[in-house]
C-alpha cells in the first residue's frame, strides 16, 4: 500500500469530513433527517475506509478491541439507562418530560442521550463486525502479518 500514494492521501483527506458528517447527522437528528443509527454507520464508514487502505493492524491501533466491545454494551446501557432514570423520576419508561424542569428541555435532553447511545452501539458493532471478518481472513490465510501485507499489495 506504500506505493498507492493517491489512495492513502485521499483516505486521509476524506476521513475528517466523513467523521464530521457523522457527527452532524448524530446531533442534527432531532431537527431533521438523521439520528443515531445513520450517524453510527457513517462514523463507522470512516474506520472501514481506513482499514481497507491501511490494514487491520493499524485499524486495531485506532479502535482496539477493548474499546469497541464494551462500547457495544455501553450504548445500549445509555439508552436503557435513560429509560430507567425517567422511571425513577416518576415518569413512564423513556418519558423524557421528567428529565428536566421544563418538559421541552427534558425531551431535548432525552432524545439526544438516547440517540447518542444508539450511535455508540451502532458504530461499535459495525467496526467490530467488519474487523472480525477482516481478521478472520488473515488467520485463515496464514499471512505472515499485516505489516508485510502493507508492503506488497
Amino acid at each position, binding site marked *: 500500500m506504500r506505493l498507492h500514494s493517491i489512495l492513502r492521501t485521499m483516505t486521509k483527506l476524506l476521513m475528517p469530513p466523513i467523521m464530521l458528517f457523522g457527527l452532524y447527522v448524530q446531533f442534527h437528528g432531532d431537527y431533521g433527517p438523521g439520528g443515531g443509527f445513520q450517524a453510527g454507520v457513517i462514523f463507522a464508514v470512516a474506520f472501514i475506509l481506513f482499514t481497507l487502505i491501511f490494514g487491520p493492524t493499524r485499524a486495531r491501533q485506532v479502535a482496539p478491541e477493548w474499546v469497541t466491545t*464494551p462500547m457495544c454494551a455501553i450504548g445500549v446501557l445509555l439508552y436503557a439507562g435513560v429509560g430507567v432514570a425517567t422511571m425513577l423520576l416518576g415518569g*413512564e419508561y423513556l418519558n423524557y*418530560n421528567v428529565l428536566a424542569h421544563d418538559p421541552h428541555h427534558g425531551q431535548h435532553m432525552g432524545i439526544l442521550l438516547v440517540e447518542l447511545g444508539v450511535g455508540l452501539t451502532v458504530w461499535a458493532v459495525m467496526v467490530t463486525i467488519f474487523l472480525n471478518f477482516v481478521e478472520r481472513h488473515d488467520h485463515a490465510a496464514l499471512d505472515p502479518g499485516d505489516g508485510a501485507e502493507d508492503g506488497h499489495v
Partner: protein
Amino acid sequence: MPSLLSQNLPALQVVLPLVAAPLCLFLRLPRLAWLFALAVSGAAFAVSIALIVLVQQNGAFSYDMGGWAAPWGIEYVIDPLDSVMLCLVTGIATLVLMYAGPSVEAEIPRRQIPVFYVLFLLCLTGLLGMVATGDVFNLFVFLEISSLSTYALVAMGRDPRAQTSAYRYLILGSLGATFYVIGIGLLYMMTGTLNMEDLARRIPEVAETRTISVAIAFLAVGLALKLALFPLHKWLPGAYTHAPSVVTAFLAATATKVAIYVLVRIFFTVLGPIEAFQTLPATVSETQLVGVLAILAMMSGSAVAVFQYNLKRLFAYSSIAQVGYMMLGISMVSVTGMTGGLVHMVNHAMMKGTVFMALGAVILRVGSPDIRRLDGVGYRMPVTMAAFVLAAFSLIGVPGTVGFISKLYLVRGAIEGGHWIMVAAVLASSLLAVIYVWRVLEVAYFRSRPAGAAPVREAPLVMLAPMWVLALANVYFGLETTYTVGLTEAAADYILNYVPGEGPTWEHPLFEDPHGHGDGHGTGHGAGHAPEQDAHAPGVDP
C-alpha cells in the same frame, strides 16, 4: 417507591433483562455472569407473578411507553393471556438458568460464557417484549431481538453442524420475520395504524379489500414458519439437536410457544373482528387448513420421531408433533378447544423443559445423546432418568400428569365441535408417542450397562433441582388444574370474545384535545406533564 415499582411493572418486565444483558458483558468470571443472569430472571419471574395478580384483580390494563398516548405511541398491554405467557417464559427461564451453570461450563468455551449469558438475556428480552407489547411493529422488533440472539445461541453448540443448523434457522427465521413485516406493512397501508387495538377497530371498514387478504396470507405463512407448523418446520430439528443443551431446553419450552401466542394475538385480537382465522381456506369437511396441517404435524412428527437415534433429534420431532396439538386446539375456534391448545402450551413447556434438561444432564455425564450409547443409563443416572420418565409419561398423556389434562381438553373440544378426525388424530399420535418413549425407556432400564463402559456419576445437584421442580410440576399441575386450566380458560374466553375499544382500559385522550399531548412540550412548565400523569394513572396504577 412501591407505587413507582407497581406503576412501571409492564415496562420493568421487559427492561430488566434488557438492561442486564449489556451489564453481563462486563462480568468476566463465568460463574459471576451465571449468577447475575439467574438473579435477573428470578426478578423478572417475580414481576410476572405480580402482573398475574394485578390482571386477576383488575382485568387487562395498558402502559404508555414514554408517556405517549396509545394509538400514536407504543403501548404495552397486559391481558389474561399475556400474564400467563409472561409467567411461563420467565419461570422456565429461571429454572433453565439455574440448571445452566455446569452444563454451560462444559459445553461453551470459557471465554465465551459471559457472551452466552448476554445472548440468553437478550433472547429473554425479545420473548417477553413480544408478549407484553400492544403494537404490531414493536412486536416485530422484539421478534428480531429474540430470533437474532437465538441464531447465535444455536451456533454456539459444540458440534460443527450447529453452525449449518443455525444458518438454516437464520434463513428460514428471517423469511418468517420478513413475511410478518410485509403483512403488517400491508395492514398499515390500509389503516394507517400499528396499535393492535386501533387496528382491530379500523380493520372491519377495509376488510373486503385484496390488500387485507394478502396481508392475512403473509402473516399466516410468516408466523407458521416461526412456530414450525408442519410443512414449514425444517429448521427446528437441526436447531434443537445441535444447540447447547441449555439453549435447547429453553427454546423448546418457550420460543415456539411465544410464536404461537403471536399467531393467536394477531389472528384473534388484531384480525379478530373480521374473523380472519375462521375464513382461512377450508379444506376437509369444515376442518380448516390449519387444523389439517396440525393433524399432519402430529402424525408426521411422531412417526419420524420413532426412527431417530439421536435423542435430542427424537424429541425435536416430537416437539413438531406437539406444536400440532397446540394448533389443533386453536384451530377449533371454541373456548374448550382454545383452552386445550393454550393449556398444552403451558404443559408442553413443563414436559419438554424436563426432557431436554434430563438429556442435557445425560450429555454432560455420558457425552452423547445417541440412544445406542445409553444402555442401562437408568441405573447409572437414576435421579435424572426418573425425572425423564415422569416427563415422558406426561408426553404420552398418562392420567395424573399434565399431558393428560391437555389431551382431555383437546378431545373434549373436538367432540364438542364434532371433529371426529381430530379425536382420532390425537389418539393415534399419542400411541406413536408411546412407541418412541418406550424405545428410550427400554434402552435405559431393560438393558444392562455395557461391560467396558466407564462409570458415570449422577448430575450435580444444581442441575437436578430445577429438573425435578419441573418434573414434579408435571404431576402437580396434572392433579391440581385450578391455575393452569383456570388461567388459560380465562385467557381463551378473553381472546375469543375480544371486542376492541370496549375493554375496561382506555379511551383516546387525544381525540378530545389534539394539542394536549403531542405538543405537550410546547405548553411550558408544569402544564405539559402534569395532566399526562393523571391521564395514565387509572390504567397503570389501579
